[in-house]
């Protein structure tokens, strides 16, 4: 509403880089998130904030994070995907068939699984974009048909086991020295980037971002080195996030995606080939089906018939909680990550507190409500 007066100062300039990672709403969510963490930490007698638990928590959130980022991008473009749970399941079936029946090595399995995801994504894209069926219906059909196909191919049986090296794709850890190297490299590159952009826009040294960055890297080091290194699943999420953030925030492709989601007709008249963008959005989602399926089958070392049930809802919820507006054009990929983190924190925290499932459901509902209400109220005040 009053963005006009803001961000005219240098402090504001420096912050832009940070807020580009996640929207304002997502930042408010970080506050809610902190409250939760403290509560869990106290109630669990210090169990919650241990490197081990935090490492596990992150690994537990990997699949929903990946899918949530993809859905966030589709929502930003003005589309939706309800099929993710079934699509990930079906790709997982493909992966498990390749591993258990064909005995393919790890790399071809992953590549073909992602290819399978691309096919599913493109199939839905064609119906939604080329034929013009609302994506809500296309992906609702996908929700049914993909799982049906998976059941048909496997007789709804579990396929297992995957090879140990395949399982390590999600469950393995980056060695401790390598963990140091990666974190160090990220710190170096990010600070260089921060300093460079600050210089470019003639802002003063971005002290706050640098401090935050260093703190984040420091905490990460404490967590990962304190347990067994970076879990591979977390590495996948980090890589996907880095790519998707860059894509959506720094490239023409991402920029145009936002414009399409905000005003379809105006974007068309500005020369943006809408259909190509929407189609590629579904294909990109397809790539993420493949990645999530790889993580899911690796995690369980199996493809099970119930895997991915309700994943679509969690993913959309993560995106919406993270500030991606269902009206399109608004939100950041990083927001979806924050949303996913919130969801998995609630699950993990209540799980280690041994709260009854029934009460968990009630509490989770209430936390979602309160988190968003806090957010709405905070963002109104400003």
């Amino acid at each position: 509403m009053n963005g006009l007066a803001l961000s005219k100062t240098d402090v504001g300039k420096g912050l832009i880089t940070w807020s580009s990672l996640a929207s304002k709403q997502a930042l408010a969510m970080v506050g809610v998130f902190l409250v939760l963490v403290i509560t869990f930490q106290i109630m669990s007698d210090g169990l919650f904030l241990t490197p081990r638990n935090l490492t596990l928590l992150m690994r537990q959130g990997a699949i929903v994070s990946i899918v949530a980022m993809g859905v966030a991008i589709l929502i930003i473009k003005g589309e939706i995907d309800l099929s993710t749970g079934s699509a990930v399941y079906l790709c997982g079936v493909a992966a498990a068939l390749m591993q258990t029946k064909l005995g393919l090595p790890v790399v071809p399995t992953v590549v073909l699984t992602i290819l399978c995801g691309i096919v599913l994504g493109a199939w839905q894209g064609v119906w939604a974009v080329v034929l013009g069926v609302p994506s809500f219906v296309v992906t609702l059909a996908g929700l049914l048909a993909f799982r049906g196909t998976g059941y048909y191919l496997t007789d709804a049986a579990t396929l297992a086991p995957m090879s140990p090296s395949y399982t390590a794709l999600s469950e393995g850890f980056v060695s401790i020295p390598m963990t140091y190297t990666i974190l160090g490299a990220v710190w170096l590159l990010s600070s260089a980037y921060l300093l460079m952009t600050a210089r470019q826009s003639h802002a003063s040294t971005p002290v706050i971002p640098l401090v935050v960055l260093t703190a984040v890297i420091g905490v990460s080091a404490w967590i990962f080195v304190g347990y067994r290194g970076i879990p591979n699943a977390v590495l996948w999420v980090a890589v996907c996030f880095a790519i998707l953030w860059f894509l959506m925030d720094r490239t023409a492709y991402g920029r145009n995606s936002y414009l399409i989601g905000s005003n379809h007709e105006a974007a068309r008249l500005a020369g943006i080939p809408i259909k190509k963008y929407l189609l590629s959005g579904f294909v990109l989602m397809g790539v993420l089906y493949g990645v999530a399926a790889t993580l899911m089958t690796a995690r369980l070392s199996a493809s099970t018939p119930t895997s991915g049930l309700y994943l679509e809802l969690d993913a959309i919820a993560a995106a919406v909680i993270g500030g991606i507006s269902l009206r399109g054009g608004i939100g950041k990929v990083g927001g979806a990550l924050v949303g996913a983190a919130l969801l998995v924190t609630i699950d993990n925290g209540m799980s280690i507190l041994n709260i009854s499932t029934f009460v968990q459901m009630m509490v989770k509902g209430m936390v979602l409500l309160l988190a968003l209400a806090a957010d709405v109220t905070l963002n109104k005040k400003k």
Partner: protein
Amino acid sequence: MTQDVRLSIEGITKEFGGVPAVSEARFSVGAGETLVLLGENGAGKSTLMKVLAGVYPLGTYAGSFRLDGVEAQFRNVREAEQNGVVLVPQELHVAPNLSIAENILMGMLPTRFGIVDRAKARQKAKQCLDFFELDVDPDVPAKSLSASEQRLIMISAALAKSAAKVLILDEPTASLTDGEAEHLFEKMEQVRATGVATIYITHRLDEIERVCDRAVVMRNGAVVLETPDVQGRRSEFIRAMIGHDPAVDASLNRAAPGAEILEVRDLWVRGSSATSKPHVCGVSLSARAGEILGLFGLVGAGRTELASAVFGAWRGDVTGDVRINGVAGRPTSPGEGIARGVGMLTEDRKRSGLIEGQSVLRNISAASLGRVCKAGVIHSKNERARAESLARDLDLRPPNIDAMVENFSGGNQQKIMLARWMATDPDLLIVDEPTYGVDVGARYAIYERLRALSKDGTAILMISSDIEEIMHEADRILVMYKGQIAGEFEPGVSRRELMAAATGETHVPSFDAVPTTIPFKQEKQKIGVAI
């Protein structure tokens, strides 16, 4: 003419995030008086009117105003209307899928025990439509009306609201044709006779003497001039609005036309279904570098369709030859049009121009992001520098390229749209109603920019319904009538000749020889039959 004071504004101040949009505004309007409110884009006119009409409710502004001597305290629009303050806002709020009747009767559907009295609703709607002699079925969806028809029904709907004491019309004529505007003025006369105080906002200074009694000029949120009458004060108004004398008329300074940029031969434009009546029927024309080619006509003449087809944006059927920069072939998408050096500033800013929810920067870059990208990655320093310089060039107010476009005043939004197309560095720039809702100062700025572009070798095709604009700014004028070119004129042409061509009174090789009468009736014809 001054009777009792109807409305007196006593020092109203309204801020957005600490920045005042209206500061200490103070003036009054009498019963049966028509007051024109003038001011640059962003001067705060609409904001002040929204305060009066309850859009910004009590408590969100400082100061007060009195209605018939009683302090008015409106908590919402409905209360304002109940007390007789009726606003026809600058931005139309139409529910496109609801029927025309339901749009006209928004919030005041006639009911019996909560049940909509459809017969009465139809009849009331019909009355409103009759007011402007619009012959349409009140039961069809509002989206089937053109923008100007939508505005007309909203005006008549406002007038129909019970017992208006103060009627506020915020730039009603911006999207009306002269004929429609003339009709509106007649109706305003009738309304005034019933003792209603009217506040009339416009950027078309030529209208003032025709309809208004008194003028108030705002600048930077404050009232800077109040005059007891309006006759012969045009330059005084302009000076008060922009704070200094207007720039010299840039159009005097013309360049010699250069190479032919656009050539159109026998172009036909139809809707998507095979049976629909053609919008453009065999038009041929050409435009040269360094030339501003004016395209005049009445609403519905087919100018927008012609331009869309040339740009590659038309969704229906197109036949005919187009040659751009010597290369033959019609662009089949706006993207291709842009790639071949064409730009098009669209007429319907809100629907097909502005990308709301996004910043000025992103809006400006929308059509030319590739120019500030390396391998698909945005070079944000270059992008910002370019947008900042365009914003400075066009005197965008406030000059903040990170603000959301929806927070800018209408005229400034138009500048942002122009900036978008200037950023594409086009060889052919089509501007459809380029000064829609733009103040005098900015209007000259836009003319100046267009002239400068044309001097730099851009061919400009200027579509306008503003006859003065066409006469002053175009180097050559084509007039369209019913999808055909009805004549070509030099700048010195008279108003009368242009109007005659635009209404089909001059002899043209007629596509269908429907005899026509006055301009307004002409449109009525168009609406009544199919589009």
